[in-house]
């Protein structure tokens, strides 16, 4: 496109004008009479790309000669065209001056194929009619506005200026047609301009939003890491945001590690190298537990709420994460074949993780019951207004109980971490690799399920 501008034309988008299309129907009969030596041109189906254009400048292509324009195809590579059409090829009825802005040509091969006998209709004129230069060609082109949307196949425009006499008979029609084409070209240009403007403004808006987001994130991290203790609400909010961001990054890295592991397993990598990859994934899991522990210290309710997970994950969450007892159920018989010792180890792990989970769950229930007791103590009710000290005392007790939430979350994460580690210990490298892949795939699918669910059509 740039080159067109450089060519000092006002209409860089000329080339997409429909007038450049060649059509068979109407022109045929007329053309038959005028251009007996040319056959019919079909429209090849290649699409038009802006990038493909062409540094055509009128001056380099055309030399205007009185009424007639001879087109010299210097810059246009039309080997095929030349051979089939001949150097003087062409189109016009002969009388008009062909004012060419830019036009498009299709590259090499297809062109040759499409030319057939090399009949090229004089599409160029009408499109060029809008050019600043003179436009009173009498060439005969019938164009279809709709065609321009499908890309433009342009043949070369070569105007044969020899047969002037033939043009006089079709002058009126030609002028009308030219006017129509001018109009169409103008509308098309306006449409394109509007579209480009829309794109530009969207792009600007996008960069604005990205910058805003970047700033907000940086602020969030800054405040979260520099916790001063005041503005508790904002601090907690920023901590939540900071964790969400870190978790997002962790997920991306996790996916990358898993992909590497997957390709390693599929390519039957040796155990030594595989061991390193498996170790990498395990170490990365340790990292998420570390992040969660930092997040819990800053905002335990955010961690327990699971708002940093997708809805489906959140629904089946237990104490801020996945159920360790479920991990082994997910693995199922993907781990087979197992030795007897391994089988026993897996069964014991299943049982102990289940027991630990139940114990922590019951502890949480006790915590909730205890809070209920504290908050609904005797000082509430009609006599509540009287005893502020009592109220404050009860609140202090309740605060103490709430503080144990962080410990429960910590124990739950430890349980998850240890279950993963024990599983790693029991299994061989290859089995462990498979297990990690299965578990990761399960989680990904659960996440995908959330997206699908949210996007489902509703009536």
């Amino acid at each position, binding site marked *: 496109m740039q080159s067109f501008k450089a060519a000092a034309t006002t209409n860089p988008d000329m080339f997409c004008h429909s007038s450049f299309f060649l059509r068979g129907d109407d022109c045929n009969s007329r053309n038959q009479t005028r251009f007996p030596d040319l056959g019919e041109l079909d429209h090849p189906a290649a699409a038009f790309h802006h990038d493909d254009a062409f540094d055509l400048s009128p001056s380099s292509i055309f030399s205007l000669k009185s009424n007639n324009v001879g087109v010299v195809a210097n810059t246009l590579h039309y080997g095929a065209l030349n051979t089939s059409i001949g150097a003087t090829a062409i189109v016009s009825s002969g009388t008009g001056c062909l004012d060419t802005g830019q036009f498009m040509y299709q590259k090499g091969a297809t062109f040759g194929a499409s030319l057939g006998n090399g009949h090229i209709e004089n599409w160029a004129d009408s499109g060029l009619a809008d050019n600043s230069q003179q436009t009173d060609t009498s060439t005969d082109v019938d164009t279809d506005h709709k065609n321009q949307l499908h890309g433009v196949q342009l043949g070369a425009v070569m105007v044969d200026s020899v047969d002037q006499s033939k043009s006089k008979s079709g002058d009126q029609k030609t002028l009308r047609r030219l006017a129509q084409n001018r109009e169409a070209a103008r509308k098309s240009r306006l449409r394109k301009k509007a579209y480009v403007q829309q794109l530009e403004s969207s792009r600007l808006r996008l960069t604005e939003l990205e910058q805003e987001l970047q700033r907000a994130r940086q602020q969030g991290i800054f405040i979260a890491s520099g916790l001063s203790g005041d503005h508790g609400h904002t601090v907690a909010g920023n901590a939540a945001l900071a964790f969400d961001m870190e978790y997002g990054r962790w997920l991306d890295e996790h996916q990358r590690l898993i992909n590497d592991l997957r390709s390693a397993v599929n390519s039957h990598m040796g155990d030594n190298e595989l061991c390193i990859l498996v170790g990498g994934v395990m170490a990365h899991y340790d990292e998420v537990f570390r992040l969660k522990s930092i997040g819990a210290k800053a905002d335990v309710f955010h961690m327990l709420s699971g708002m940093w997970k997708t809805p489906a994950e959140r629904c089946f969450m237990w104490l801020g994460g996945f159920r360790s007892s479920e991990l082994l159920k997910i693995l199922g018989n993907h781990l087979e074949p197992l030795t007897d010792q391994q089988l026993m*180890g897996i069964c*014991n*792990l299943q049982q*102990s*993780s289940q*027991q*630990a989970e*139940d*114990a*922590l769950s*019951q*502890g*949480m229930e*006790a*915590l909730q019951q*205890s809070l209920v007791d504290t908050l609904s103590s005797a000082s509430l009710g009609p006599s509540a207004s009287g005893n502020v000290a009592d109220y404050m005392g009860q609140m202090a007790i309740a605060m103490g*109980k709430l503080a*144990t939430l962080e*410990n*429960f979350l*910590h*124990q739950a994460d*430890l*349980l998850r971490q*240890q*279950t993963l*580690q*024990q599983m790693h*210990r029991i299994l061989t490298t290859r089995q462990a690799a498979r297990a990690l892949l299965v578990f990761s795939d399960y989680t990904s699918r659960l996440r995908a399920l959330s997206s699908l669910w949210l996007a489902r059509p509703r009536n």
Partner: protein
Amino acid sequence: MHCQTGSWGSYVPTTRTTVGDPLERIERLASENAVVIFSISSCCMCHAIKRLFCGMGVNPTVYELDQDPRGKDMEKALMRLLGSSPAVPVVFIGGKLVGTMDRVMASHINGTLVPLLKQAGALWL
């Protein structure tokens, strides 16, 4: 499953003087039963650990420090022993210190807790 609490023998008078220091008392108490848990009655994590052992079929001996006159001292002694707060719950098996909730859970998951219990006679096959 009923977990017995605070019973270290009916012949010992409850008003026994504080001859020994709290740590000694703790160790003595810990060695008297296969599984000993020092707890606080209002602590929910202690409740969780009790339920863990009961769920395994173990019958631990539990001492509620908030119900013991020398409980405060013992709690402080335990904090010194563990090097961290909170002091409870803390578990002794076969007279040896196992640790707090995370140690107990870790040993259960990695399969060392059950053999330890069997060795101490708290679990039978």
